[in-house]
């Protein structure tokens, strides 16, 4: 019975639901907005559920769902920004997160890293979070985001260089807030 339903309907709901924390972490790292991240995850879960028959290889469930979420995220940005071509701002868009006040050292590091990641251009941010947080291989990331592997590597390289310089500046003046504030 279980086998039939798996064959007919793809992965069962529990295995889709089980991806929720992973998706939420990625979504949050992309947009740095808990409410939006929650919406993205919810939308991804429901899309994954309706399209579950399309997934043939269950081992790829996580990557498949992240790629669905990537589309949801891009759709969201499109509707918000009214951009025609995502490629144009793939390299420039920053998330609008503010720097949270830091109260202790560990939290301060976390806050600095989050705001530095938030300041990375969208494309770099996505590649970096997928590789570092979820340990996806370069080829998987390329498939999820639908970009060439070479682009994954160059974005990752630039993302880490940018992140390092952002953090270096932040760590030098740890208590002053303006450093990582978004400049419009």
């Amino acid at each position, binding site marked *: *019975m279980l*086998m*039939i339903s798996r*064959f*007919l309907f793809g992965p069962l*709901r*529990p295995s889709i*639901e089980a991806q*929720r*924390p992973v998706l*939420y*972490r990625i979504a*949050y*790292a992309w947009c740095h907005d*808990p*409410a939006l*991240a*929650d919406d993205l995850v919810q939308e991804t879960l429901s899309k994954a559920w309706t399209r579950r028959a399309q997934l043939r290889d269950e081992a790829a469930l996580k990557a498949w769902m992240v790629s669905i979420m990537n589309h949801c995220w891009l759709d969201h940005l499109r509707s918000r920004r009214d951009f025609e071509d995502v490629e144009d701002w793939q390299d420039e868009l920053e998330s609008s997160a503010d720097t949270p006040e830091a109260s202790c050292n560990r939290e301060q*590091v*976390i806050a600095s*890293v*989050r705001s530095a*990641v938030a300041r990375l251009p969208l494309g770099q941010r996505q590649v*970096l*979070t997928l*590789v*570092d*947080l979820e*340990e996806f*291989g*370069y080829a998987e990331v390329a498939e999820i985001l639908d970009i060439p592997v070479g682009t994954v*590597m*160059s974005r*990752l*390289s630039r993302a*880490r*260089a940018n*992140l*390092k310089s952002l*953090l270096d500046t932040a760590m030098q003046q740890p208590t002053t807030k303006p450093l990582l504030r978004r400049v419009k």
Partner: protein
Amino acid sequence: MNPVVSDETLHAFVDGELDVAESERLIARMRDDKELAQRVCALRSLQTMVRLAYVEPPVADGRTLRAAPRRQFVQRCALVCLAVFVGLIGGWSLRGTESQAVAHAPVVLPGGYQVVSLSHAADPSRVLLHIDSSEPDKMQAVLDQAERLLDAADRQGRVVQLEVLANSRGLDLLRAGHSPYAERMARMKQRHGHNLHWVACGQSIARLKSDGEKVVLLPTTQTAPTAIKEIVTRLQQGWTYVRV
């Protein structure tokens, strides 16, 4: 010795994307090249910091993720209710057919067996018995079941089409040299002829073969491409499916 190692190569190394030979070459180089070792170390700590930053992402106010387990719980309850309901209905309707058609036969489907059909009315005269376990009890149960159904039909002058489908470990039932019931099955086949079919899952056979096992099926055994496909096809044709 190579000139400066590119950032891309170092990233690939840190992310485990280099092959073993390249990684080893780089590790060997790091022993002598302190600066290179430092670059790798800096990359690793950057990676650790990013990971640390998102171990516990903040949760949206008001609509916490805690809602999920509750929803799951409700879904599970609903699923259990549905399963019980289907079981009751299935059992009840089978009881009906049995009392009408197989009046003298003992219980056709003992409790615990699942009956599924994709068509509106499961046809009790076409039954697919599915076994995927090599437990002798189950093997015996599937044969007992088949014999009971066929004998009952014989007694009443009805025709029952019966197919015993084996996959996974259940395939042993149909393998010469592995099946503990080869003789009994040969007798059954002789007696019921074309009303009884032994069907083996081609995929399970292929899997065993790829593991280096020799697979010889009992005579008169047919092969389906995959067990699942066979089950779905039969269900669509209105067969009654029983998993033993």
